[in-house]
């Protein structure tokens, strides 16, 4: 996760006043990846996604020092293209077939292992990579990189007869043992900030379609995190929408099947799942058989209650009747015993004692004897009652037994009134049971135990039959319903789970959609912000290249996402808007591609400080060549721009426009012997001009005095800069610092001091050292060039140019 991206998103959330929306958390979670987003949705937290290992380039600020090619394409024996490391423009000029493009291709193959110009072509094209005249094949390049004390050498070599793909590239930094090319960390940058562009590519950049162009441009913006976050939000939304749709679709069929079943649970599920809002708790209750709704026990419970009814057990009825009869006999036999009499007497005396306790001493209310009831009597009678009670206990037990036996019938038939009262609802006929029960309960009105026992024995059989019949009917009904329900219950249970997820997801969908739509806008905004400077640069380059073209280029934008991503180019032809690319000539298309490519390849984030352009002039209108030269000059202000061209219009324009450039000519003899010749460089350029002026016979003397020393000074300054750049870049100093140092050393002497002593302040020592080491005439020339208004006669002008050239050569030898 690029922390910059997160803070961009956060500040946009705040700017939109959206930070407090419920969904803003989702936006931030999505930046952490899918797992973090899902965790946020389920209210938990997950460890933020492991930071994707972004392979940052190990080596940055790379300038090209040379390119070595041997036995590759048009080049036979090994040839080295030496370049001035550091910002500046180099034109490599040669006729078609001179082998110049082989350097450009060689460098691309060396670094990327392939060449884009072969990709779309037939195999025979690729197979022709080897030079026919030279069996050994190898590629190499030397780079000066910031922070490295020595050069970085990359090479790739093939044994005789080896396949193209077999050669692995190695990189050796600072004279250290060679390692894999990947160690430089350039792999990603070679794609995103691709520093090569060929004629073929210029054409195909726009031919391949708007999405390809989008990819080529958007990859430099470093917005992959935004794309991934948006994908996470979209996937979260789609998963939930899919779940909801599936649950809704599944409900249709399920409800239809449930309707066919005569089951109260099925009806409840149908009722709960039919509305717009599903009552999933009710579904779950129905599934579990719980009484979840008002209206008493569920039908299933009624049926189960009846199915579990127990008929009166014949043996127990018999036992109960026997006990009744036995108890009745015991009461009968106990009636005549003393125990019975004692019991009755005790009751009588207890009544008298209560009478005495209530009314005090008195005559006997029964026999009338005077003063019979007194304290002494009471005391005596209490003792008598205790004795009588003990004697009566036996009789009490007999009576209690009789009582117990009488009530035993009530527990013989455990009925379930709550189930039975609703039996009709579940389709059961209670008629026979009611009749049998009515007879049975007549038992309550029979006082005589013997008669009761007879009644029970008589009435129990029909009751048993009725209950058994009812119970079996209920059981059968229950079984039938369960058979129909069970498979449906499984379905309902499965659906319930899916529906719960779907309903939960549906609640999250609203937030997810808000988050997604906000995020889309924010991502497009961030993308536009990042792309704006590139688009501006591209527009500026186009403005230079288009010259008088009728095609005006307005805003360049990256729009859309996913499969609809494209680069929208606001093209206006003769004031008519919305024109398609189709109206542009091939040359214009190439110019447009170049306009887009140069800003991409020269972004500060690129580890490469060089760009290699192969044949940009082809099919370009002559008037555009001047613009191209200016564009290349602009790019070479802080980049090393190497341009291969077969067309002499570009070098011509560079010469005429006074653009500081080095021109290397490539020629090819028989048998692929390629030769390089430095045709011109900025130093030679100034001195050549100075020579041309000084050598003009009829030159006005004041013009000579004014022009020649100035040109010589420019030549010498360029020489000093070249010397300083090569030295400082060579020891790994960042180019920006080198350029700053050079910019601060304004004037010939400070620059010479930098070149001689690596210290711009030591200007006083410059002339003595030049005189000492290079001779007095050279020191004299330096002095003349340095003076503000030198007096130079036409005759002396020629001499000044000659000495200046010698001085330039001597200075170059210092580096």
């Amino acid at each position, binding site marked *: 996760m690029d922390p910059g991206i997160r803070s961009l998103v956060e500040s946009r959330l705040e700017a939109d006043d959206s930070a407090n929306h419920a969904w803003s958390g989702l936006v931030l979670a999505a930046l952490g990846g899918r797992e973090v987003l899902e965790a946020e949705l389920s209210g938990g937290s997950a460890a933020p996604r492991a930071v994707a290992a972004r392979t940052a380039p190990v080596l940055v600020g790379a300038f090209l020092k040379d390119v070595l090619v041997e036995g590759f394409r048009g080049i036979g024996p090994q040839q080295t293209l030496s370049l001035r490391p550091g910002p500046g423009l180099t034109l490599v000029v040669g006729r078609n077939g001179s082998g110049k493009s082989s350097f450009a291709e060689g460098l691309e193959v060396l670094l990327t292992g392939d060449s884009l110009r072969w990709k779309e072509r037939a195999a025979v094209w690729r197979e022709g990579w080897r030079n026919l005249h030279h069996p050994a094949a190898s590629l190499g390049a030397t780079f000066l990189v910031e922070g490295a004390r020595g050069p970085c050498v990359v090479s790739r070599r093939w044994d005789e007869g080896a396949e193209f793909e077999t050669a692995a590239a190695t990189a050796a930094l600072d004279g250290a043992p060679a390692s894999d090319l990947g160690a430089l960390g350039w792999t990603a940058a070679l794609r995103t900030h691709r520093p090569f562009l060929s004629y073929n590519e210029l054409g195909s950049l726009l031919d391949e379609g708007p999405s390809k162009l989008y990819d080529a441009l958007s990859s430099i913006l470093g917005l992959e995190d935004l794309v991934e976050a948006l994908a996470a939000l979209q996937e979260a939304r789609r998963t939930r929408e899919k779940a909801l749709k599936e649950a809704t679709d599944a409900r249709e069929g399920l409800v239809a099947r449930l309707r066919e079943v005569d089951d109260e649970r099925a009806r409840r599920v149908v009722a709960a799942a039919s509305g717009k809002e599903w009552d999933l708790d009710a579904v779950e209750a129905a599934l579990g058989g719980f009484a979840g709704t008002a209206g008493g026990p569920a039908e299933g419970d009624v049926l189960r209650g009846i199915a579990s009814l127990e008929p009166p057990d014949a043996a127990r009825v018999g036992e109960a009747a026997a006990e009744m009869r036995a108890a009745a006999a015991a009461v009968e036999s106990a009636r005549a015993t003393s125990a019975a009499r004692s019991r009755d007497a005790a009751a009588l005396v207890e009544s008298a004692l209560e009478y005495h306790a209530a009314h005090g001493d008195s005559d006997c209310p029964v026999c009338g004897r005077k003063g019979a009831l007194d304290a002494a009597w009471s005391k005596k009678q209490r003792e008598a009652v205790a004795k009588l009670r003990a004697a009566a206990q036996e009789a009490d037990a007999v009576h209690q037994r009789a009582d117990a036996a009488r009530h035993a019938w009530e527990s013989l038939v455990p009925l379930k009134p709550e189930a039975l009262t609703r039996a009709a609802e579940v389709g059961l006929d209670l008629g026979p049971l009611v009749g049998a029960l009515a007879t049975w309960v007549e038992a309550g009105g029979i006082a005589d135990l013997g008669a009761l026992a007879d009644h029970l024995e008589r009435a129990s059989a029909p009751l048993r039959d009725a209950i058994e019949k009812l119970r079996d009917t209920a059981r059968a009904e229950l079984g039938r319903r369960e058979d129909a329900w069970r498979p449906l219950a499984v379905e309902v249970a499965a659906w319930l789970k899916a529906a719960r997820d779907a309903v939960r997801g549906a609640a999250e969908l609203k937030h997810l959609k808000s988050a997604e739509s906000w995020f889309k806008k924010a991502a497009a905004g961030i993308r536009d912000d990042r792309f704006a400077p590139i688009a501006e640069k591209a527009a500026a380059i186009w403005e230079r290249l288009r*010259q*008088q*073209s009728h095609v005006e280029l307005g805003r360049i934008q990256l729009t859309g996402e996913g499969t609809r991503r494209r680069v929208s180019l606001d093209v206006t032809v003769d004031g008519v808007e919305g024109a398609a690319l189709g109206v542009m000539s091939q040359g214009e298309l190439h110019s447009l591609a170049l306009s887009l490519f140069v800003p991409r390849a020269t972004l500060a984030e690129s580890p490469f400080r060089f760009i290699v352009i192969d044949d940009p002039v082809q099919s370009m*209108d*002559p*008037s555009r060549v*001047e613009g191209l030269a200016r564009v290349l000059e602009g790019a070479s202000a802080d980049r090393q721009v190497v341009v291969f061209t077969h067309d002499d219009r570009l070098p*011509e*324009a560079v010469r*005429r*426009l*006074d*653009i500081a450039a080095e021109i290397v000519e490539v020629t090819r003899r028989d048998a692929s012997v390629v030769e390089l010749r430095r045709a011109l460089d900025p130093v030679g350029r100034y001195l050549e*001009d100075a020579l*041309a*002026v000084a050598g*003009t*016979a*009829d*030159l*006005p003397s*004041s*013009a000579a005095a*004014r*022009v020649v020393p*100035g*040109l010589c000074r420019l030549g010498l300054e360029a020489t000093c800069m070249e010397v300083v750049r090569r030295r400082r870049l060579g020891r790994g100093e960042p180019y920006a610092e080198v350029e700053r140092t050079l910019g601060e050393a304004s004037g010939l002497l400070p620059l010479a001091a930098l070149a001689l002593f690596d210290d711009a302040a030591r200007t006083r020592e410059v002339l003595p050292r030049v005189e000492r080491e290079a001779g007095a005439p050279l020191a004299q020339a330096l002095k003349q060039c340095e003076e503000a208004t030198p007096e130079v006669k036409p005759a002396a002008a020629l001499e000044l140019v000659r000495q200046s050239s010698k001085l330039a050569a001597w200075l170059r030898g210092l580096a």
Partner: protein
Amino acid sequence: MTGPADPRPLLELADGLLRRAEPATAGLWPRASALLALQALEAGVARLWQRHALDFHGCSMRTQLICLRSYLEDAPLAARASHTWSALSRACHHHAYELAPTSTELEDWFAVVGELVRKVEPA
């Protein structure tokens, strides 16, 4: 010694050829107008030398154009003038297989010549 020609009418003539289609000049106008513009450019440079009382008579145009950078006080314009001069003279001479310049190219070059003329002799 007569002074250098006035560059303005020359440039106007060139511009006229470019803008008006006439049967008499059909097919000829690109090179003809380039020739007039080239003369205007050289006349403009000569006017500059006249102002500085410099006698470049007999000096090659290359030398003059190099010196122009020092005297014009506008190095980019001097460079563009130099480039335009070479483009115009290339268009004026017949090169086998080389096509005549297009109207847009000529317009471009005339603009540079006009700028130079105005710089040398502000109206």
